[in-house]
């Protein structure tokens, strides 16, 4: 007897609302990215000079941290779908650790800039740098709080193969935060 593969219907993970939010946020950031590149084209020398004061290592390591955290979240959801809730919770905790580490590195990076006398008022490049990374940082903080809530509820057994919507919604938001930084890092730190 032959087996017939049943195709899974196409679906968006999580509640639809989170995708509306992701879409709106991406529009907002997309406009910001484009306006940055446009302003940059009007004074490449200034932007290039200013870019050199940025520490690419901070940016690169933060990219790795967020990518890794997203990977942990993906694995957490896979574990939750198999009702391995303890394992899922542990993976979420590791993602939270990544979020906190990102925050610590961000604070160190900003402190370095400020104590060197560089702020968002210094020039247009730094205005973009502080505002873009600052708004993104706000999203990272919010996302980390969301992960903490997901962690608690996963440990409490609220999620599992019977109920993945909350986990999927929070995960989608967190991946968006990662995605934004994947664009932001080359935009600010690498483009020359």
């Amino acid at each position, binding site marked *: 007897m032959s087996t017939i593969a049943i195709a*899974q219907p*196409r*679906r*968006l*993970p999580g509640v639809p609302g989170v*995708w509306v939010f992701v*879409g709106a946020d*991406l*529009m907002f950031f*997309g406009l910001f*990215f*484009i306006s940055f*590149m*446009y302003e*940059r*084209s*009007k004074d*490449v020398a200034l932007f*290039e000079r200013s870019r050199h004061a940025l520490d*690419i290592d901070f940016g*690169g390591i933060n*990219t*790795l941290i967020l*990518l890794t955290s*997203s*990977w942990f*979240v*993906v694995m957490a959801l896979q574990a939750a779908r198999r009702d391995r809730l303890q394992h899922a919770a542990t993976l979420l905790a590791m993602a939270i650790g990544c979020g906190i580490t990102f925050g610590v590195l961000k604070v160190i990076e900003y402190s370095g800039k400020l104590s060197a006398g560089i702020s968002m008022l210094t020039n247009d490049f730094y205005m973009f740098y502080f505002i873009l990374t600052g708004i993104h940082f706000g999203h990272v903080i919010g996302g980390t709080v969301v992960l903490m809530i997901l962690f608690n509820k996963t440990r409490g057994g609220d999620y599992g193969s019977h109920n993945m919507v909350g986990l999927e919604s929070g995960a*989608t938001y967190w*991946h*968006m935060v*990662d*995605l934004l930084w*994947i*664009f932001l890092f*080359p*935009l600010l*730190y*690498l*483009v*020359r």
Partner: protein
Amino acid sequence: MLATWASTWWLSKDAFSARTATVLIMAIAAFKVRLVLLHFMELAHAPLLPRAIFEAWVVVVVTAAILAVYLGVFTA
């Protein structure tokens, strides 16, 4: 993912002209963003309309960003 991260880091060094490097860096970033969208965010298994919208976002933003680099050359 790691390969793209390493390659964009290398591209920021001086092996290529600034313009070439910029375009390549943006293109690689777009590729990475698309990977996150499709595999982490599971858009590969999503209904085609939302998937098309987000894929279009990547194309539009990267194209506009790259165009802005070239436009700047003409308005300078």
